[in-house]
């Protein structure tokens, strides 16, 4: 091989490395900006989530998950914008702010086992992966579930187990769960999921369309197994402020 050719190939490799490194930097800085935006927005929610911010652990996890790898390549430049993005099959990857809130409401702990209904892109499972011991995620649309499974495996989220199935029945083989997150559209809260929730556990259900989360339903099962639900707006908005 001619030295000039070798030099050319080496230059190409170096250039590719440089571009790749620049992209990594670009995404890392975008991710950091996204985290700062979420922190700023969430700090105003003190009244609603009974604390002054989203927990540091949740924010750290979101700061490490490469969101851009969970969406179609042509949309990667928009990956860290604070908005939902289409991922095909009529599904979306949720708005980062909403992901942060939902994850925080689950109060994830390192020894927790979490069930997710609606794997979607796999991003929510990836965020949970760094926060809990095990994540079990169910997707009803097979193509979507298979893609998410592949991405999660490639990125090394080994504590996430996925399956293609109907999420309504939960995953009885691995019950009980410390928390459950339901991102699929439902007309009522599925009783099997409530049964698979540990006493003292929490379930979160976002309600709305694919591009608009109108509210979050927080289902709490107390230590005696009694259930209460709470409707939480993702933002401070009091529709009625009169003195009645």
């Amino acid at each position: 091989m001619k030295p000039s050719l070798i030099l050319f190939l080496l230059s190409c490799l170096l250039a590719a490395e440089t571009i790749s490194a620049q992209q990594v930097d670009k995404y890392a800085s975008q991710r950091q900006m996204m985290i700062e935006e979420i922190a700023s927005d969430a700090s105003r929610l003190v009244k609603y989530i009974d604390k002054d911010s989203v927990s540091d652990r949740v924010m750290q996890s979101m700061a490490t998950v490469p969101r851009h790898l969970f969406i179609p390549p042509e949309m990667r430049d928009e990956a860290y914008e604070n908005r939902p993005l289409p991922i095909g099959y009529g599904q979306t990857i949720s708005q980062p702010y909403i992901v942060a809130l939902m994850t925080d409401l689950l109060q994830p702990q390192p020894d927790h086992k979490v069930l997710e209904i609606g794997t979607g892109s796999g991003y929510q499972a990836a965020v949970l992966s760094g926060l809990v011991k095990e994540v079990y995620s169910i997707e009803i649309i097979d193509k979507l579930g298979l893609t998410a499974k592949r991405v999660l495996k490639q990125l090394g989220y080994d504590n996430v187990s996925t399956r293609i199935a109907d999420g309504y029945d939960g995953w009885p083989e691995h019950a009980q769960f410390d928390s459950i997150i339901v991102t699929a559209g439902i007309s009522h809260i599925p009783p099997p999921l409530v049964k698979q929730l540990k006493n003292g556990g929490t379930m979160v259900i976002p309600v709305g369309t694919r591009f608009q989360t109108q509210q979050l339903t927080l289902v709490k099962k107390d230590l005696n197994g009694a259930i209460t639900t709470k409707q939480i707006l993702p933002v401070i908005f009091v529709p009625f402020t009169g003195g009645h």
Partner: protein
Amino acid sequence: MSPSDQTPPLSAIFVLSAAALAYEVLLVRLFSIIHWHHFAFMVISIALLGYGASGSMITVFQRGLLQRYGSVLVFNAVMFGLSAIVCFIAVQQLPFNALEILWDTSQWQRLFISYLLLTLPFFFVANAIALTMARYSDRIALVYGVDLIGAGIGAIAILVLLQFYPPDAVLRIVGVLGIMSGMLAIKQLACLGRLLVSTLLALLTVIIIFAPADWLTLRLSEYKGLEQVLLINGTRHLQRHSNSISQIDVVESKAIPLRNAPGMSLLSPSGTPDQLAVFRDGDEMTTIDQHKDTESLVYQDYMSSVLPYHIHHAPQKVLILGSTTGNELLQATLHNAAHIDAVEPDTSLTKLITEDYAEYFGWDRISDRISFHNISPRGYAASTEEKYDIIVTGVPGGSSGGAAGVHALATSYNFTIEALEKYLSLLEPDGLLSITFWTSTPARGNLRLFATAVEALRNHGIDLPGNNMAWIRSWNTATLIIKNGALSEDDNKRIRDFSTSRAFDVAWLPDIKEDEVNRFQLLQQPIYYMAARSLLSPASKDFIDSYKYHIKSVSDNNPYFNNSFKWSSLPELLGISGRGGIAMIDVGYPTLLFTLVQAVIAAVVLILLPLAFVRRNEKPGLSRRRNIVIYFVSIGLAFLFIELAFIQKFTLILSQPLYAVAVTLCAFLIFSGLGSLYAQKKMSTSSPEHIHRLLNRSVTLICTITLIYVFAFPHITDTIMAMSEAARITAAILLAAPLSFAMGMPFPLGLTATRRNDPQLMPWAWGINGCASVLSAILAILLAIEIGFSGVMLTAIFFYALAWVSQPVSS
């Protein structure tokens, strides 16, 4: 031969006008199916500006175009037929996502391209008609009359066609009609190489008829419920039925149950049986339960909507208003209702449970107790003399989780003050009216219902309406009970027991205590209870004013129940848009306003632009130009204001929105066309004095009749609604006939006068009127939301008066 010696190509104009109006109605259906109704309204409103664009273009190029009139007419007619199909296919290829429009700026570019594409067919039609008027300028009223009559026939024809053929097939028919009108023009004008061109057009017709079905297959938004369900393994599309008001799809999911049970209690001992999903226009899913035995339907007893049967055991007579796919029927039969009258205006839904899937639904087991009535709830309520123990309204399809406010622009007469009063009058003593809605966060629709019910009870002579009302809510539904009489202690106990045993929250009872609300489904504020207490108090107005959504009671004059948008809340919601505020904005009203802004900008450009091209020595003085603008804008606005107000009034009278649209459009356009023909006949000489006199008479007549109707409608509505169907349709036509006959005159009279004074500006005036018509359709809804339909009609009178003052002939 000079143009005055020739007969205008009336048959071609007739067919073309019919096809154009049919296309307009068809596009609303097509876009309602592939996207959502309010976007359909926006896209098509803007596309109609093709009429304005045509006027501008002809103003500039009319000399050249008129010299080749025959060829140009044929070209435009054929291009309408072709573009009607090709442009729709092109729009379907655009990856436009209506739901993403608030997030993604590239959606706006796609929307803009959609506008441009859909403007084309209307541009070609308008060219053909305007050039014909310019060519036969001594018979403008004749051409216009035929145009209107053709459009009237097109309005009725499209509704009939859509009853029997799917929308994509009807699109081919519209395309062929465009080509046909071109062939008719060739035949009549003996232009072009008649044989060669006719052969080519015949070939084109064959291509349209036999074009691959895939080209025209409707590609629904992937975010619509139907598309999402079909992605699930094991689902099977069983049936599609299409008519002029909806497309119904039935889907089976054998491997994975659908499990639709709005707000089912967590304490239900069993889940749902197998179900079939039913979608209307690809969304708003409802389900048909497989009724094997009573056991399989136990879950129905754990919905909030079943409450009335726990207060009033074993009712003799039950009325279900909006029985859709039969859930409320099952609840009534499970609770031993002796007889059920089921009211459902959409026969295709009734047919699903009584014929197509009768065995699945168990129709034979319950049919002996049920009578169906194919009429609107208001129509039935007005015509029946029966009395009921329980009246139930069906839970609407879909959920409040749908895009906020997408139904904001749809009128509904089923939950107005007048409607609730009527339902109350059908109750036996101690009978119950039960209404279940989906809840939304923040609450609005349910609060509006409560406010409306309070007013209806007061109008019904109840001084303390709170004593007759109960309100409970589940996770995502709320059920309001209104009793014909005060709720007893025993009633209150039953409601409490029912709610507690299902973990539902009580939001209102006559003896409610503050500590018993907001126990199971916690809200950040117990807003339902707070609202009930406030709306029943003397301070209800303060509460309504201070609430951040529009929750004032709804009347027949302003029946936009689903529009809860309030201007004062917008800055706050926009300020928090990145944190979820967008989802709390009811998008219907802002979409309408945004459409108006776009239309105004486009209209101003289209109106002003041609003046730059008119030669200085041909340009009339400022006052004449101003008069032309004011006159044609005024009659363009006023005509549609009245027409749209009539569609609403007739929706109530005729009990079927479909009949209302068909009768109104047909009657208005045909009688207006006859009015225009009458004007042509009277104009033996188009002297200014003659036109002036005729115009005076027609405007006086329009204003007088409209004024009478504004005050008479509320008084005659109930009388007409109680008549037989044939009598109601006849009455509606008789009401529309004299007014629309007079309304057919001002436009051709004004155009004739313009032609006489400033012939080069006649196409310009046509374009101005086209632009005004587009603005009118949007403004009429905005005005109706703000001041009601009577206000819209009074505004129309004002514009007719303004037109009279600025009539071109007087200059």
